[in-house]
């Protein structure tokens, strides 16, 4: 328990009119029958549930993919799900037969390595999941043991029917029926962050009949029976009846406490377990964690298909030719004893020979489909992941948490992200509201700039500085003034650090009681009183510091109360009927005032306002109201519009500055007027029936009119560090950002403004639901709204017009239905920003799936809470925000970062690099294996297609393992087209990934063509050069071993030289690895040749005796290497010169040191390279600047004039 906190004990239900006003009286029990409603729970009698048919699932949960028994078969199945692995398995099995041209080990060992490595990785990840489950399952909970005694047991041992006691700030272990709470009236507060991401607390309320069950002993004799619905994933519904004391009561969702939500502001609650384990609603909502594969990897499957077809074709050609040769030529080859052969070479059975040779050929040409590719990719990805993990620029100094690649499968996918689907709370925002500005009686207070303003000022300053260099220097000092004026607020930012949480207000006129000297003192007092009185929070005294903290439903309210306190109106006590405020700076000295709360009409998302009617100490009845400006402005009295114009202006400014605004108004009531209204109100309140809500609202409406505007507040929803900048950069990189939040629409829109997803001048398309009973009508209406929106965008002539789509969860449910979802998607894709509010976790996942499948682009889901898990798992890449409580999001994610802003570096730097590295590496890999594999095929044509390889077995094994693997890996791990700083400076470069410029079929086939060319050059040059002539001064001619070795030397040199042309970034590592690979070949040849001929066979002394002394060996190697690579060199240099890609230009500028020498050009290129964005800071600042432009120009001109004509 929090130390030193004292809390007033009150019946809080009295405060609420709408949410808790309902009495269940009259509403009869639900008719519980039929399918879907078969569950029976015997409360406090868990033993009844130990045998069938009432035996339910235990509270043990497991999110693992495998268990000890299923691991092997299941993970093997997963592994051989990959096309390539299946092929290798087949090849390995065939290699066990005598038909194989190679030894079986050389086929099986690499396969075992690849599969084993992947399986080990899977196993490790699953083990982590298991440990996390264990952690959850062994949490302790108090349960009713017997005879009124409560004892601890583990969550997993909990049974249906158990009575449990949950204490403050603990999670509910299962879905519970709320019986009673520490509050007399059975209210408790629940935080459902993990379920729906909403941060405001929800009120749950126990039934009247069970209220008395609020002590341990009472449960001695408690029994009851619940009949209710079967487990289902719907979080917001519940149907059931409680039979208690021979009566049946209907149960409502408001009495159900869901697993994974948290008890708040309430000391303890008692509840009965209804659903356990996988039956709970949250678990029913969870989706299996899928195994994800990157697009490149999926495409590789298709490449494998292509290569496999090629393989089949050349194998078929080989075997047909072989069969033909066996049938018609073999009988003439006496030297092969055609009369005495095994089946394979029997001229009488060409069919058998042909078929068995097909197998041989498939294995022989298997080098076209390199198994080592998968080994190398695994190795490369692990190393890339370790670079991500070790990047200090993604390391959070405050929390000490680095970025983490939790799976290495998706590194390159990071470079292809098209759409980011982001959670809001905890991801974009800190969920901390700071009171920043206010407007009272038409005067704006608060000088501190918001994030948006600060950025705008900076941008303008830099733009001006840029202009300055071009224009004459005479106006320098003049411009500096303007600059200072706009930047001044950002300059002093560093001096003042906000010391008070929730309060960043800064204005000497208001603080320290100075407001007494302001002209409108009365209004200011009223303003502060509204802040201090109009709320539902309760104060908590911190005994240690003597200050009050506030437990408020929403963080806004907390910020208001803190602000009121700082202005001298400290709310310190709430009783059942009153609010007490200590007013410090009154003329009469500090006084404590009591405000009797007569009525409280609380905030709902529909009403968008909150009203209290209080009687102050003078007996005056005052109605105080705060709400959305549009709502308040509609309800102003004629004489209450005195400050309307100024306030509206201020509100617009605040909105532009990305702040959340509320307008405050009041109304003085006559006693008679009030009592007349109150009668009506009480009547409505006690009325029974479905129209009660409507009546209540109507009555409330009657009172909330003729208001007098006091002012407005502006609260900054504290964005996380660097979020606007990051969003801006991502927008410049061409990545779209969708915000999916469980929060209210207004909050979401405000955040949209704060992080520059929305701005003034952007056309908002809000799609909402009608209040209508018929589903058809609602759908019809939504359909209309979507069509209208699409039409509007289509007809818009302005190419720079930006649209924003805002949709709420209820509407989304309809929009996501089969017949409408693609229309909705079409509209959403046309909009620059999309904000979905009040969405459930399931909807988040559905939206993600819609985007993923509808657009076919790569999606990235980022979030921090358990409610984001579905989205994170559904998205192509899931990113979890680590370092906040609850690890569910991180556990489900593929990457975790501790701050949203690190996403920029993760995508723009690491994603970009990894994408390029992997795609270049894969292309090169196919190139080299085609170049190598096809020479085997050509050679077949010269051996009567007999399946003889020209190379030594060992060469072929070493080719992929040692001789060419290291440079490829260094390409995959270390290649950088441009440095990380440049990546960040030119976010447009990122677009190369989503456009898939480096792994499209054009490029892949190009590389394959290059491989084909190289293979032809290597083979035929060698064949012709060493056809039959002597190749040495001693007159020896080549034999098969020598020709094979020469050809292999050419291949090694050519492919390793080729990779040097691909690389653009050489550290000593690349140098060492490439040259070492070439040297390794000669060293190998030397040492292998030194072995006794028993082992080295034909290679014995081949380098020292046969090859090295022959000049023709070296000249041929040089010739072939150059001839192989010259066309590629010509291609890339022509491309670079005449069709340069973005990175080419940047590389060149960097290379020529343009960034240092020619600042202007560098900057110009940088601006040019910005993707035209409609969202983000830059776009917003541009808009801001253009709106200020006129004003500024005028000012500049006048300043210039002043300077030209000095007095």
């Amino acid at each position, binding site marked *: 328990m929090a130390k030193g906190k004292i809390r007033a004990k009150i019946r809080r239900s009295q405060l609420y009119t709408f949410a808790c006003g309902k009495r269940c009286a009259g509403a009869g029990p639900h008719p519980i029958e039929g399918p879907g409603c078969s569950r029976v729970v015997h409360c406090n009698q868990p033993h009844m549930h130990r045998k069938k048919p009432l035996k339910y699932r235990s509270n043990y949960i497991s999110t693992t993919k495998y268990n000890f028994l299923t691991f092997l078969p299941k993970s093997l199945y997963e592994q051989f799900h990959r096309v390539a692995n299946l092929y290798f398995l087949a090849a390995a099995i065939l290699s066990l037969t005598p038909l194989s041209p190679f030894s079986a080990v050389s086929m099986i060992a690499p396969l075992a390595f690849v599969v084993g490595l992947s399986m080990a990785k899977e196993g490790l990840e699953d083990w982590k999941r298991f440990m996390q489950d264990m952690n959850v399952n062994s949490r302790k909970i108090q349960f009713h043991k017997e005879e009124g005694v409560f004892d601890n047991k583990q969550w997993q041992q909990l049974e249906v029917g158990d009575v449990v006691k949950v204490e403050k700030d603990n999670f509910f272990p299962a879905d519970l029926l709320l019986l009673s709470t520490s509050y007399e009236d059975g209210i408790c507060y629940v935080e459902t962050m993990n379920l729906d991401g909403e941060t405001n607390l929800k009120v749950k309320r126990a039934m009247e009949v069970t209220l008395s069950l609020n002590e341990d002993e009472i449960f001695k004799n408690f029994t009851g029976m619940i009949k209710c619905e079967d487990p289902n994933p719907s979080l917001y519904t519940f149907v059931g009846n409680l039979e208690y004391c021979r009566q049946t009561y209907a149960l409502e969702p408001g009495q159900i406490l869901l697993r994974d939500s948290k008890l708040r502001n309430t000391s303890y609650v008692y509840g009965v377990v209804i659903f356990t384990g996988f039956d709970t609603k949250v678990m029913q909502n969870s989706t299996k964690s899928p195994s994800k594969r990157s697009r490149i990897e999926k495409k590789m499957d298709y490449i494998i298909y292509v290569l496999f077809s090629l393989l089949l074709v050349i194998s078929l050609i080989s075997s047909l030719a072989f069969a033909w040769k066996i049938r018609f030529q073999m009988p*003439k*080859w*006496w*030297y092969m*004893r055609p*009369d005495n*052969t095994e089946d394979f070479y029997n001229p009488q059975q060409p069919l058998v020979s042909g078929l068995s040779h097909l197998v041989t050929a498939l294995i022989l040409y298997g080098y076209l489909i390199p198994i080592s590719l998968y080994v190398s990719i695994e190795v490369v990805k692990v190393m890339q992941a370790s670079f991500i993990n*070790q*990047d*200090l*620029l993604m390391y959070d100094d405050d929390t000490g948490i680095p970025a983490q690649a939790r799976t290495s499968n998706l590194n390159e996918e990071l470079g292809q992200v098209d759409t980011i689907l982001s959670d809001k709370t905890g991801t974009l925002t800190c969920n901390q509201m700071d009171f920043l500005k206010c407007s009272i009686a038409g005067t704006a207070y608060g000088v501190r700039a918001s994030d948006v303003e600060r950025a705008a000022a900076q941008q303008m300053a830099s733009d001006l500085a840029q202009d300055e260099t071009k224009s004459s220097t005479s106006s320098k000092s003049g411009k500096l003034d303007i600059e200072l004026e706009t930047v001044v607020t950002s300059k002093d930012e560093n001096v003042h650090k906000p010391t008070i949480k929730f309060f960043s207000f800064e204005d000497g006129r208001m603080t320290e009681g100075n407001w007494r000297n302001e002209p409108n003192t009365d209004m200011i007092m009223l303003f502060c009183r509204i802040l201090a009185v109009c709320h539902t929070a309760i104060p908590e005294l911190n005994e240690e510091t003597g200050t009050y903290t506030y437990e408020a439903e929403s963080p806004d309210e907390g910020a208001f109360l803190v602000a009121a306190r700082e202005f001298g109106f400290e709310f310190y006590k709430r009783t059942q009927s009153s609010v007490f405020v200590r007013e410090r700076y009154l003329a009469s000295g500090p006084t404590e005032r009591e405000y009797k709360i007569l009525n409280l009409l609380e905030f709902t998302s529909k009403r968008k306002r909150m009203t209290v009617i209080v009687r102050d100490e003078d007996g005056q009845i005052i109605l105080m109201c705060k709400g959305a400006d549009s709502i308040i402005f509609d309800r102003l009295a004629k004489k209450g519009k005195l400050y309307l114009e100024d306030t509206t202006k201020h509100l617009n400014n605040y909105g532009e500055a990305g702040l959340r605004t509320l307008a405050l108004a009041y109304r003085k009531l006559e006693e008679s007027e009030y009592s007349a209204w109150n009668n009506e109100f009480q009547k409505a309140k006690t009325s029974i029936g479905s129209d009660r809500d409507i009546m209540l609202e109507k009555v409330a409406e009657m009172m909330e009119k003729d208001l007098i505007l006091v002012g407005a507040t502006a609260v900054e929803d504290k964005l996380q560090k*660097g979020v606007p900048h990051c969003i801006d950069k991502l927008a410049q990189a061409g990545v779209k950002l969708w915000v999916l939040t469980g929060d209210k629409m207004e909050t979401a829109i405000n955040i949209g403004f704060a992080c520059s997803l929305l701005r003034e001048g952007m056309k908002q398309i809000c799609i909402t639901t009608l209040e209508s009973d018929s589903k058809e009508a609602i759908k019809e209406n939504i359909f209309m709204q979507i069509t209208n929106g699409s039409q509007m965008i289509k007809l818009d002539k302005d190419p720079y017009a930006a649209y924003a789509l805002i949709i709420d969860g209820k509407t989304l449910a309809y929009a996501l239905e089969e017949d409408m979802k693609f229309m909705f998607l079409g509209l959403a894709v046309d909009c620059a920003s999309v904000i979905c509010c009040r969405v459930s976790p399931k909807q988040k996942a559905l939206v993600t799936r819609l985007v993923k499948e509808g657009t076919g682009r790569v999606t990235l889901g980022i979030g921090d809470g358990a409610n984001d898990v579905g989205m994170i798992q559904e998205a192509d890449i899931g990113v979890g925000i680590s370092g906040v409580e609850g690890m569910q999001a991180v556990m489900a994610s593929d990457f975790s970062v501790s701050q949203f802003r690190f996403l920029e570096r993760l995508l723009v730097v690491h994603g970009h690099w990894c994408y390029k590295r992997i795609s270049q590496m894969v292309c090169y890999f196919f190139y080299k294996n085609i170049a190598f594999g096809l020479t085997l095929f050509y050679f077949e044509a010269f*051996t*009567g297609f*007999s399946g*003889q390889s*020209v190379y030594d077995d060992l060469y072929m094994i070493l080719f992929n393992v040692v001789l060419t693997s290291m440079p490829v890996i260094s390409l995959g791990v270390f290649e*950088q087209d441009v440095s990380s700083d440049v990546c960040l400076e030119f976010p447009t470069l990122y677009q190369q990934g989503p456009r898939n410029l480096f792994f499209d079929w054009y490029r892949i086939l190009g590389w394959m063509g290059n491989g084909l060319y190289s293979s032809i050059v290597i083979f035929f*040059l060698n064949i*012709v*050069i*060493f*056809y*039959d002539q*002597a*190749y*040495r*001064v*001693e*007159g*020896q*001619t*080549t034999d*098969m*071993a*020598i*020709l*094979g070795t020469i050809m292999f030397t050419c291949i090694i040199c050519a492919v390793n030289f080729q990779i040097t042309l691909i690389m*653009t*970034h*050489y*550290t000593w590592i690349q140098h060492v690895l490439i040259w070492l690979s070439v040297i390794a070949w000669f060293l190998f040849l030397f040492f292998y040749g030194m072995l006794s001929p*028993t082992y080295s066979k034909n290679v014995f*002394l081949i380098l020292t*005796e046969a090859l090295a002394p022959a*000049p*023709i060996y070296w*000249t041929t190697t040089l*010739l072939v290497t*150059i001839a192989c690579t*010259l066309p590629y*060199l*010509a291609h*890339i240099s022509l491309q*670079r*010169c*005449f069709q340069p890609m973005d990175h080419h230009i940047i*590389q*060149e500028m960097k*290379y020529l040191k343009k960034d240092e020498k020619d600042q202007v050009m560098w900057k110009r290129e940088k601006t040019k390279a910005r993707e035209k964005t409609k969202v983000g800071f830059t776009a917003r600042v541009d808009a801001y600047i253009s709106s200020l432009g006129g004003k500024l120009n005028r000012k500049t001109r006048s300043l210039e004039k002043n300077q030209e004509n000095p007095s």
Partner: protein
Amino acid sequence: MSETNSDRQRRGDRESAFYLFTQQRLPACKPVLTPPWVITIYFLVGFIFVPVGLFTLRASHSVVEIEERYDIECVPSQFRNDKVSYIQDDSVPKNCSLLFKVDKYMKAPIYIYYQLENYYQNHRRYVRSRSDQQLLHGRNFHGTSYCQPLESSNNRPIVPCGLIAWSLFNDTFTFIRGKALLKVNRTNIAWKSDRDHKFGKNVYPFNFQNGTWIGGGKLNPRIPLSNQEDLIVWMRISALPSFRKLYGRIEEDLDVGDYVVVQLMNDYNTYSFGGKKKLVLSTSNWLGGKNDFLGLAYVFVGSSSLTVAIVFMLLHLRSQR
């Protein structure tokens, strides 16, 4: 992203190699293929390759080579239609003579090659059919299953076993210039490593060519395998279906206008599969035998590289970026 000083201190030595490595900031050379570079490279390649090619071509032209096909001419006219029966008929004398005219001065040593065409020494069945261990260790070595179907005959192992040895080439040539016999050196025609390390000094042919089917040449059972150089040369299987193998060396110069008469025994059967047989006399230099192609290829690559360089230069001059 700005960093405070404390960060820097905490992170320790920012310049350490390990730090630079993990942060992917190792100093790197980033060559950029700017047009001047590319043009330079192509010119460089051209200027190296063309001279090398010309030099190689000259070397190739300095080699003198005389080649004569003899498989048809050596068949008596009455057997021309059925050459196989000629070669298989032991009663027909196989001797034959060829006349070589020397057009260019040939400096000793002059290498004598026999050339077979359409002969698949590189066939998988053929390649495998040998036992290196037996060649080295003799008939005490028993793991010779690869040698099937010539592993044994009459229940006794064959040394050397296998198809390759069994089909040993056995045409023989004697060379006469004018009246005098030209001395042909037939030693040291095989690789030294083969003689010393792969063919046993104490391994003698055994039970060789004793079966019902006689393949190629016979071996003198009293000479150890390491001295049977014809066999050693033959057992270095050729890479391609047409190949030359060294027969011997003439260690006298041949002058222009010399006539060399070759007396040969045309024993080897290539008629079944229509393979050509040729006899080649050739001098050699550092390049080996006559090899115009290498030089031509060098000249071709070099000159096309020069062309590319020039084209590139023109394009670059025309559209300066």
